[in-house]
């Protein structure tokens, strides 16, 4: 299986505090990889390293290699704008812009320079179809993105990311603000999307990680404790700490 993203000996610091220690991990192409672990273990930090979003936080340092398709993206010369087109991100709280649904989805292609109205319409339709939102909103594309329900807003945010045609989707607890039905819909969506994209999802909901992913990585206090196929991790983990966390014996 091809490795889409690999990290080697990754260390990350917020100021003087070391948030990630020596993380070496492979994300496989076309698969869903889940990052689990207790609060503060570094999984969101790690996710944000993959598209250099931590650069927006002052006083952070990141050492080690992060290879995307074999090329290191963790050095000063990286074009982060280019990187973020290839590696898209969906956040925990649905955050559509206070613009219309159409403008939300067209935002990405527009800032990348697309001006042709026909092309924009096509991309918006394709993206909204991909997230199963097209039929619900096709007559209301001028409505504000904020007028949708929570689950719809999150799907809108996913459509927004898909519109720039990334290769990797990073999802930071995408369902934690949603109700159970909306959550299951997003999980089904992820199964469909994994055919075309590589997906990395951070979740504090272990059952979700078990349901949805093919690979699971367990983080604890900034370290990568164990990682492997999801069915093995949840039926026969090797590390005692993983066993304790998964069976809820943590505390």
């Amino acid at each position: 299986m091809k490795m889409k993203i690999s990290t080697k000996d990754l260390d990350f610091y917020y100021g003087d505090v070391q948030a990630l220690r020596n993380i070496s991990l492979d994300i496989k192409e076309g698969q869903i990889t889940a990052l689990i672990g207790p609060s503060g273990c570094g999984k969101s930090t790690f996710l944000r390293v993959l598209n250099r979003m931590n650069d927006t936080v002052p006083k952070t340092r990141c050492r080690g290699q992060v290879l995307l398709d074999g090329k290191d993206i963790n050095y000063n010369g990286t074009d982060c704008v280019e990187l973020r087109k290839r590696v898209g991100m969906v956040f925990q709280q649905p955050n559509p812009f206070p613009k219309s649904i159409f403008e939300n989805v067209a935002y990405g292609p527009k800032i990348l320079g697309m001006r042709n109205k026909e092309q924009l319409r096509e991309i918006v339709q394709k993206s909204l179809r991909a997230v199963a939102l097209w039929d619900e909103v096709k007559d209301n594309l001028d409505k504000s993105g904020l007028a949708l329900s929570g689950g719809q807003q999150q799907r809108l945010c996913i459509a927004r990311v898909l519109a720039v045609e990334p290769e990797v989707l990073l999802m930071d607890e995408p369902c934690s603000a949603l109700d159970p039905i909306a959550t299951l819909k997003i999980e089904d969506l992820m199964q469909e999307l994994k055919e075309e994209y590589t997906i990395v999802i951070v979740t504090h909901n272990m059952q979700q990680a078990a349901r949805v992913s093919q690979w699971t990585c367990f983080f604890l206090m900034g370290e990568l404790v164990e990682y492997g196929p999801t069915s093995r991790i949840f039926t026969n983990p090797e590390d005692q700490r993983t066993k304790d966390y998964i069976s809820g014996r943590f505390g």
Partner: protein
Amino acid sequence: MMGICGVSLPLFIVIYVIAQGLPAINWDFFTSEPAGGLSGDGGISSVIITTLWLVGATLVVTVPLGIGAAIYLAEYARDTWRTEIVRRGVELLAGIPSIVFGLFGLAIFVQVFDLGLSIISGSLTLACLLLPFMIRSTEEAMRSVPRSHREASLALGATRWQMVRSVVLPSALPGIITGIILCAGGAVAESACLYVVMGGSAEMPGTPLDGGRSLAVHIFYLINETNALDKAMATGAVLMVFVLVLNIATRFLSWQYRARVGGKK
């Protein structure tokens, strides 16, 4: 008890001035120039035009500078001691009495730049006075845009400037417009520093290099040099209506902004 006092006092002032000034207000009042000198005859036509020019020119200078500085401070400046100095400087400027700006304007714009006692000198002086407020209100409006929107924009591959232009500024726009209107209100309300730099000409201005009186300054002249208290009250009434309209516009815009962004959730 205090609430009732707090509300009734300004209300009383407003009603009193308008009541006193109403008799002097007629069509003539608005269309004739004041006679100047000691007589107090005439109306306030030139004064109104001067005021409008003054506010316009002030905004032309203040708004771009203020917004630009605010964008820099809110989005681009890093947390270093240099940025701290700039911020402290802005706060300091906000606290300086307006008459001091008047002296500054007199020395620099009127004399050194040789712009003379003119509307332009008045606008530039007002710009110095009002810039800190413009910067502050724009910066606040920009800061109120949620961080999540900025992150979403950056995560889609926007550059910093694209993010500011396409997400932050549009969202902050109502707040910025409120700031602009307050600036205009501030310009109209100034009397002392304009008295110093604009000259006292009661004639209709031909160019921005001409001198003139704004509404507030005209009241000052009427009280000091003439006996036309009724005309002064009338001018005061017009001024208050002006300010009231600006106030209402501000409130309306904030209400609209909140309804658009907040109410639809």
